């Protein structure tokens, strides 16, 4: 079976879906809010834009809400929406009577979700740059930031944050593929997120699979987060574990539509 054809087939299902709108809204929301907030005090931008650590501040300010709220919530919802495409449209039975291996169906859906996640990162980064530069284009008192724009640093951060998101994606995917009722994965996801958020100061918080994105952000901004734990490795281990368990649960599911 042609990998590209299966990919195209799965990707087509997301066209005009709520999940695809969520990608757009999720990526634009925070940069837009920061832009609006910045525009309320245009006089502050004259000096602010010339600060040596301007880009780093923009980066950290933007990631604060993304890491703590937007990404966890967005992933929980988007993953649920993608898996619900089959349940809601009663389409599992048709999909499972097409000549595809279960492994292709399972992993292609996961790849689509990861692709949507990557799109959020791209939209977010693009909007972050665009809305930061926008005042320069039409406000005479604002010049292009003079501070260094370390693209490698931000690319590295993006990659790490992406990795931190994987346990959330894979656990939500596992639950979303198993439970027909949308509220079950949604409820468990929100509980896990709240648990991770409220126990951030706990020394063993790194054992919670939803906490890595928040921990990584806090660590990057100099908060008191244990440095001796490789949270990216933990994230990778959890996501591998959830993926394998999810696949086993899916394959051995008694009723396939």
């Amino acid at each position, binding site marked *: 079976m042609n990998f590209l054809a299966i990919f195209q087939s799965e990707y087509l*299902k997301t066209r005009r879906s709520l999940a695809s709108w969520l990608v757009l809204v999720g990526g634009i929301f925070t940069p837009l809010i920061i832009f609006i907030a910045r525009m309320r005090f245009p006089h502050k931008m004259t000096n602010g834009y010339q600060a040596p650590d301007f880009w780093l501040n923009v980066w950290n300010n933007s990631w604060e809400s993304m890491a703590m709220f937007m990404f966890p919530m967005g992933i929980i919802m988007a993953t649920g929406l993608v898996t619900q495409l089959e349940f809601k449209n009663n389409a599992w039975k048709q999909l499972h009577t097409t000549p595809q291996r279960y492994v292709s169906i399972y992993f292609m859906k996961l790849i689509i979700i990861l692709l949507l996640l990557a799109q959020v990162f791209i939209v977010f980064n693009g909007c972050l740059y665009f809305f930061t530069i926008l005042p320069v284009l039409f406000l005479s008192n604002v010049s292009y930031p003079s501070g260094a724009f370390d693209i490698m640093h931000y690319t590295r951060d993006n990659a790490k944050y992406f990795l931190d998101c994987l346990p959330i994606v894979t656990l939500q995917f596992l639950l979303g593929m198993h439970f027909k009722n949308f509220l079950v994965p949604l409820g468990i996801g929100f509980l896990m997120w709240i648990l991770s958020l409220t126990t951030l100061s706990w020394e063993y918080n790194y054992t919670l699979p939803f906490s890595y994105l928040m921990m990584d952000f806090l660590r990057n901004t100099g908060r008191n987060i244990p440095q001796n734990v490789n949270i990216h490795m933990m994230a990778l281990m959890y996501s591998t574990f959830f993926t394998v368990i999810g696949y*086993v649960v899916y394959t051995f599911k008694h*009723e*396939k539509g």
Partner: protein
Amino acid sequence: MYAIETNNLTYRFPSGFGSGIFSHSKASSPEILHNLCLNVPQGSIYGFLGQNGAGKTTTLRLILGLLKKQQGTISIFGKSFHEHRLDILREIGSLIESPSLYNHLTAQENLAIYQKIYGVAEKRITEVLDLVGLPDTGKKKAAEFSLGMKQRLGLAIALLNKPSLLILDEPTNGLDPNGIIEMRELLKQLQREQGITILISSHLLAEIEKLVTHIGIINKGQLVFQGTLDELLTKREQRSRTVLETSDKQVTKHIAEQFNIPAEIEQENIVLPAIPRDILAAITRTLVEKGIAVYGISRINDDLETIFMNVVKE
């Protein structure tokens, strides 16, 4: 050769945690199917009949691999389904219960999803849409379709890969009388021109008797009749009765019994089983000779629906 052959297919609904991997069979859970041996000849239109809850959909879902087989074997075109799942599914088109449509997409897009998987040419999408009578739905989303249109689109999906075997579960649900006739003609045409084997389930015999060549009747998970439509019609012939209306019921009954024909008095009539024409003529002649007035002679044939109900009751 049979397109579909099941051997002692037995199935119980798993009890336990939902329908997931934690489910397990318990001896106490009732059997939904019991030793089902379905034989669908290649090139036939096989009507799979049964009342609601008889086990039709469960059988079809087992044949398509949507339910895990527990006991028995399933062969499609002579190959074990379990061992050749992908090869077999390439040859099958199916429409099980309500059509599986992505409501936020158009008819074209819904078909494109499967066109890519099956690797058929894009022009096939237009072909099947024309075939099922949905050529001009344009940008209308599937959510805005009527039930009949959805059913047609479901059939278009089933036909997309030019299947050798079409499995349809109550495909006329939601269709108006005209739509039912159109679908019937389409299925006949597909079987006639392309030699497709069609397995179609229904709970109404009247709905498919004009379509099928073979019939299987399932009741409470057991196959109670399987054969050609002609065999079912012969069964009807055997069950037909002759009704005599005469001036003296007792004498008429006595005369019939003299010809070794068991007779029963039902209200004002004498009811005889189906008898050869010459014996009926001889009985009538004897009645007239004995001065019994014969007011009427009629032959009653059960319609197929009654036969179906009788088979199910047996």
